[in-house]
């Protein structure tokens, strides 16, 4: 394989790995948005907080990786469940802006709590795959990247199976489409929406645990939620498959922009994509047609 092709393949794989994270974060955002019409700005901070909790359990308390990971995911799920059931429910019926502000407030509080209890330094923790590499057809890939892609694939498949095939999953879809109709057919809408928030929190925790070994455990990790927003918009707002596709694409676009465009474009790419798509092509890749009723 020629050098150039190898480089392109390398970039694509790296982009897919980081894009898989964006896709998962975007997936969490879309799930809660569809269920409660709240754009959860605290999502990135749940992710950041769970990577800190993961660090605390693995390095601080010396727990084995898998046990620590499971505990962290469970904690994040319970936390998100309570955020919906106890906090977000108070402002149901108020304009969307109130929801945005409340999630920003929760985000601020989480960020403050994490930096008060852990301190602002960056840190790292070992995973079973740290530092190992695999070579496939002349392209060297870090095992961590493969694990991330695999995890993203697994979570997406399980989630799709859950939403399509199980009774609870169908109930979630029904509650997301029309709360009143769902309620009248005997679905416990409040509990179901809280469950969606819980699932979304759990996904955020998985992302946090996977992202931390590549990007270090740091307060700044929350910024990934902004990248995920770009992914959501690129894929089409409110579409679950779109979020996945948008995330993967965005990751790849970023990697290529880092190499082929001038310095500084890599970090700005996500936001350029966001603005460009929203203005020129608001439907996104797989979005439903936009329309507003008067």
């Amino acid at each position, binding site marked *: 394989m020629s050098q150039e092709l190898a480089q392109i393949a390398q970039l694509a794989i790296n982009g897919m790995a980081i894009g898989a994270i964006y896709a998962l974060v975007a997936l969490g955002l879309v799930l809660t948005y569809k269920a409660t019409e709240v754009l959860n700005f605290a999502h990135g901070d749940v992710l950041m907080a769970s990577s800190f909790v993961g660090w605390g359990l693995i390095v601080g308390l010396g727990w084995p990786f898998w046990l620590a990971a499971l505990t962290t995911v469970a904690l994040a799920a319970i936390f998100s469940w309570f955020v919906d059931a106890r906090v977000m429910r108070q402002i149901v019926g108020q304009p969307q802006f109130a929801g945005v502000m409340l999630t*920003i407030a929760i985000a601020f509080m989480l960020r403050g709590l994490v930096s*008060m209890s852990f301190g602002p330094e960056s840190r790292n923790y070992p995973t079973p795959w740290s530092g190992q590499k695999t070579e496939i057809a002349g392209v060297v890939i870090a095992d961590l990247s493969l694990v991330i892609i695999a995890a993203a694939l697994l979570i997406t498949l399980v989630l799709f199976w859950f939403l399509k095939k199980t009774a609870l999953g169908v109930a979630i879809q029904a509650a997301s489409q029309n709360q009143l109709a769902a309620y009248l057919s005997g679905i416990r809408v409040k509990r179901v929406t809280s469950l969606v928030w819980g699932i979304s929190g759990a996904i955020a925790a998985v992302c946090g645990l996977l992202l931390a070994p590549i990007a270090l455990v740091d307060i700044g990790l929350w910024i990934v939620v902004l990248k995920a927003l770009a992914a959501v918009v690129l894929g089409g707002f409110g579409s679950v498959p779109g979020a996945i596709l948008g995330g993967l694409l965005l990751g790849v676009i970023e990697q290529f922009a880092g190499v082929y465009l001038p310095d500084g474009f890599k970090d700005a790419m996500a936001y350029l994509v966001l603005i460009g798509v929203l203005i020129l092509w608001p439907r996104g890749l797989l979005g439903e047609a936009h329309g507003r009723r008067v």
Partner: protein
Amino acid sequence: MRFHYDTSYHDGQTLLRYPVGRIAYAALLLALLVVPWVLPKYYVGEMSYVFIMCIASLGLMTLVGYTGQVSLGHSAFIAIGAYTETWMLSQGVPFGPSLLIAACLSGVIGLVIGLPAIRVSGLYLAMVTLAFAILTEHTIGHWKGVTGGFNGLSVGNPVLAGFDLGGLKPFYYLCLGVLVLVLAGLLNLMRSKTGRAFMGVRDSEAAAYSLGIWVAGYKVLAFVISAMVTGLAGALLAHHVRFLTPEGFGLILSLELVLMVTIGGLGSLRGAILGAVLISMLPTFISRIKPMLPEHISKQFGLEIFVFGLVLALFVLFEPKGLNGRWIKFRTFLQTFPLYRKDMFKRGKSYMKSERYK
């Protein structure tokens, strides 16, 4: 209890209808004029900063509170105002015109960002402006020729007609003067045809449209006015901080501005001022009470942002009308003294206006 009983057109047109209000605001202005001679130096500087934030908050309130367009990117306009002012001064443009140019350039950028507002609204607009703010910060960091990049840029002294306004007291009066001018301008704007159109667009686009209001035009106009006022605040802020770095105009500043208008109470200029005063004083207040807290809390970073979040959450949950709503309740309590009832301002049941397309 006070009843409106107008005996001439003039009564309906004055800004301050009653002698009580006139006396109160005159006293407030007088107190603010005396402040620099009474308070210690540190607080005079802080007050100038509060005034600048009030101007910026008024600018954002025009957009979010009066036209209902949420912008999470107003730090960008502050940055544009600040850097334009600094660059103009370094090019030899005198201080007065440089302020105007900074405001106008910010307004032009506001026009460019406001144009998409015709196509995208609500959450989407919030996201566009958010992305714009981040991009502006990036651009400032990488455009080293003009902005000095991450090394920063020092700001020239504001000299107006041979008189240096950079000193503590002159700068205080400069900020106060600009604030009063902006406030008076916006107060009158909101009572005019334009302001009424803004509110019409906010409350129902369809209704405004069917009344013959040019919705798209007024949306963009609100963006331009808002950006100009915010840019003006940015130009003043440049003189307050004296040394510009891109980090100073990050996302957190945007969010602080949105915090100000939300906590102040959307749709009221008084709210914008109250919110700006509260939020810009909060860090000083926190650093004051830090020594009283137990050491393991006060030593840590992050207390400030936690308190910001807590205050915002409490307001959204328990007082959605913000400080202005609180103030109106208090005023009504005084005016109707023995007759005030707790449920006078009870919120009616409201139902979510879903944006789902069915």
